[in-house]
């Protein structure tokens, strides 16, 4: 998959994985679809970037005598996610065109 496209998908998937409840790094890593090939070392900069953009907030929680970081989505993060989903119709139209299923204008 194209690197840029993957980056966009990964950001959306990470946000989606914390949409309903706060989560921590390892669980986020597990929940993101395998095809995107997310690893520990790519997840870290990704979370940092989303935090810097205000899409999520971080807090440390004590867990089994060590600290674990939990990530919570912000309203900006939710808005970004909605925006991403709204783009789906456009993406589908482009995809259909690439597959040659649909000519422009008429069908």
């Amino acid at each position, binding site marked *: 998959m194209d690197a840029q496209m993957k980056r966009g998908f990964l950001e959306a998937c990470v946000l989606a994985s914390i949409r309903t409840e706060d989560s921590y*790094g390892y669980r986020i890593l597990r929940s993101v679809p395998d095809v995107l090939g997310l690893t520990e070392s790519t997840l870290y*900069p990704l979370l940092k*970037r989303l935090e810097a953009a205000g899409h999520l907030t971080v807090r440390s929680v004590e867990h*089994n005598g060590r600290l674990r970081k939990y990530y919570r989505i912000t309203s900006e993060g939710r808005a970004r996610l909605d925006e991403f989903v709204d783009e789906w119709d456009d993406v589908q139209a482009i995809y259909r065109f690439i597959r040659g299923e649909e000519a422009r204008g008429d069908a």
Partner: protein
Amino acid sequence: MSKMGKREFLEALRCELAGLPASEADKSVAFIEEMIDDRIEDGSSEAEAVAALGGPSEVARSIVAELPPIPKAIAKSKTGSASVNWILAVALSPIWVTLALVAASAAFSVYVLIWALAFSVWLVSGGLLLGAPLGLIMFVYCVATGMPVVGVWQLGGGLLCFGLGVFCLFGAKRASVWFIEASRKYAAKIKSLFVKAPKSGRFDEKGAAHEG
């Protein structure tokens, strides 16, 4: 790197990240440590958890690859330790300080240029608008000194300038919006060399780096 322990792995990773600022390197290592601990809690052995990450240099490479251009360049110029980097930075300062100053002043002059252009458009319209009061003064003066025809000519010229000035004012307003936008984009461009912003807007938008 067979059967590397957690401590050993994290220490090796810390060395690989020596080019980063200390606090940044510590945070990256802490994140990876949390991941190892969670993997062990999930049922892996320590060796398995570490092996799943790949080699320390591999992990360091992908962390560094995600940095914006300038911190990445600093981190990649790895000499093994931050102190060696500092000594080199000081020793080579006559070169890089000069280059940095040149780069900074070039960046600044583009900024000034954008604003000088915006300012000059406003100045032109201001000058033209001044035509009306000046024309009026000349008219009064000429009439008072017994040259009414010249006076009317002066007034007409002044009003023409005023009209052009009003016209220019609309142009200046439009231009200013454009200049503000241009300088904002320019500032963002400069900033992106140091800080990597997440993709705002559409996901197919062009980002900075292509690694990964």
